[in-house]
């Protein structure tokens, strides 16, 4: 045990004698570990942001639609256009399934403009749904009130607006009770949603919610373009009970197939989309990034390792006489071997530690000057240590064996 400290002390002494050389040698490892730690912590930061946002959005919803969110390859729009529309009655039937808590029909219109007196706000959307929309989508009504069943059935021309719209159209008055112009239709504001922020850079507060019955009246279903036929109309947002996704998905599929009268040999004519699918897609993308990192890491660590091997061979050559003396007075081959191995491991670890610190600093820097958020996890530090130690061992073993195998007499003769 004392000998290990002795070896470490001797190694550190050697590096002190060759400061610049040791530093240059570890540069490859420093660069490698720095890059890996910085990029990993950025990916980790991104992962955390995305999963937080998905959580906020309510990741346990299932959307019944004509199209899938995640298309692989070409979308045959003509075929999708032939699929039957999804209807409020479908939502009602799905809501009655044992595994389902609530289902809401939802229709929407994008890129529209809302007006109040001389003010207007554009690039916002109109959503038509029912009194359960806010619950299913995790919205809270901050002032005024939410819809009741009556608002829907009586087709009351009323709306609840997102905080972005409230801020733009009613900067210094309460919006509740005021009237808005929605593409030429008068709508009374009965409530304002609490601000929800962003999801993947998109505002979640820039829409007005109106009863779906009113939406149908204002904006009759158009079948003019193929896009209208595929993307227009309702989708059904479903909240399963106690987030038992799989049963819920199976139940919905079976019900919808029955409602559409599909025989066992026919394919589904609807899609079940979940936010989990988006998460999976996102994770697949970051996995590609991850593999790229591993490649960068591997290359730079190999380069760094070769640097270490080179300098250790130089060190063995320079210290041939010293090795001869040490062996002549009783150092065993194994002692010499472990001395040089410890030296290369420490050399690599010094590079690793500098790389970890620099990587963390770099990540912190990127976090402060850009919108990306970095998160350093403990496992990354361990990974940095582990990799550099492994490089030290792998590339140190050959020089160390060379040192250990020297014949003492020949080593002593060496000048």
């Amino acid at each position, binding site marked *: 045990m004392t000998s290990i400290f002795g070896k470490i002390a001797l190694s550190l002494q050697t590096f002190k004698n060759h400061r610049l050389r040791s530093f240059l040698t570890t540069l490859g490892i420093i660069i490698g570990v720095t890059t890996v730690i910085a990029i990993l912590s950025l990916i980790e930061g991104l992962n955390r942001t995305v999963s937080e946002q998905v959580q906020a959005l309510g990741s346990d919803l299932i959307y019944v639609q004509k199209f899938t969110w995640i298309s692989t390859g070409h979308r045959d729009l003509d075929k999708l256009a032939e699929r039957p529309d999804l209807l409020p009655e479908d939502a009602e039937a799905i809501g009655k399934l044992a595994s389902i808590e609530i289902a809401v029909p939802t229709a929407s219109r994008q890129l529209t403009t809302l007006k109040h007196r001389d003010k207007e706000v554009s690039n916002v959307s109109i959503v038509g749904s029912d009194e359960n929309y806010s619950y299913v989508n995790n919205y809270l009504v901050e002032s005024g009130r939410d819809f009741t069943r009556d608002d829907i059935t009586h087709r009351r021309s009323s709306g609840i607006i997102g905080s972005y719209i409230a801020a733009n159209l009613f900067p210094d008055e309460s919006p509740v009770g005021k009237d808005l112009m929605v593409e030429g239709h008068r709508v009374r504001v009965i409530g304002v949603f609490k601000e929800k922020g962003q999801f993947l850079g998109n505002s979640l507060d820039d829409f007005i919610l109106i009863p779906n019955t009113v939406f149908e009246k204002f904006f009759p279903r158009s079948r003019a373009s193929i896009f209208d036929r595929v993307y227009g109309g309702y989708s059904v947002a479903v909240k399963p009970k106690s987030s038992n996704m799989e049963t819920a998905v199976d139940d919905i599929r079976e019900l919808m197939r029955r409602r559409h009268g599909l025989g066992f040999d026919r394919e589904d004519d609807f899609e079940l989309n979940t936010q989990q699918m988006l998460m999976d897609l996102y994770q697949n993308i970051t996995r590609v990034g991850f593999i790229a990192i591993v490649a960068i890491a591997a290359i730079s660590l190999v380069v760094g390792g070769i640097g270490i091997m080179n300098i250790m061979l130089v060190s063995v050559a320079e210290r041939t006489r010293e090795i001869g003396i040490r062996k002549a007075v*009783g150092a065993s*081959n194994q002692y010499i071997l472990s001395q040089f191995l410890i030296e290369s491991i420490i050399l690599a670890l010094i590079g690793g530690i500098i790389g970890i610190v620099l990587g963390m600093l770099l990540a912190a820097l990127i976090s402060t000057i850009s919108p990306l958020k970095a998160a350093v996890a403990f496992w990354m530090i361990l990974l940095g240590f582990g990799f550099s130690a492994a490089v030290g061992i792998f590339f140190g073993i050959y020089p160390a064996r060379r040192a250990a195998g020297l014949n003492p007499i020949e080593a002593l003769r060496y000048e």
Partner: protein
Amino acid sequence: MTMVKNKPICRAIDITKTYWRGKVSVEALRGVSLEIRNNDYVSIMGASGSGKSTLIHILSCLDTPTSGEYYLEDKLVSNYTDQELARIRNTFFGFVFQSFSLLPRLTGIDNVALPLIYAGIRKQDRAARAREILEKIGLGDRASHRPNEMSGGECQRVAIGRALINNPRVIFADEPTGNLDSKTGAEIMEIFDQLVDEGNTIVMVTHDPNVAAHAKKKIKLRDGLIEND
């Protein structure tokens, strides 16, 4: 006591050593047999190239013979592992080189203590033992200097201290006075004489008949063979 004295510590039988330089071979030793007993004081003389260094390296287990048998206290050296040979060089033998062979970055005292590291002695005990040995061979006050701040005689005293530190059974010396002036050489020989008087065993290679005269047993080598007169 008589038993120990009569039983050889080292017994070399028909030792040969052949060096190969590409396809050319040099027969440095061509069949040397000898015994070293407790408290022997042996000198090995001979012309340059006669194989003196080769022989003493083999006897001290720094090198291995090409053929022949070499026994240490009745055990065949060729059966030892690397680890065991290292242990023999560490504690069983001490070696004094002509060119001192000290580690330049270590102080005198640390050079003397070097073999104790490999004997697994703790740091505080190492320094104490090294200081004791250095006092004995008259280098107490110079002990904290590095080799390049010392005279040749002082360096050789450090080297002798290093050879003595583990109380070896045999001290080997290859031309211990070869790099010293005659006065300093004589001082070193005084130390050797004293060590033998105290019961140590010394085998030394020398060119100098005055140095060889200190020994009680003289061996002459010629062309890799012991010359009998």
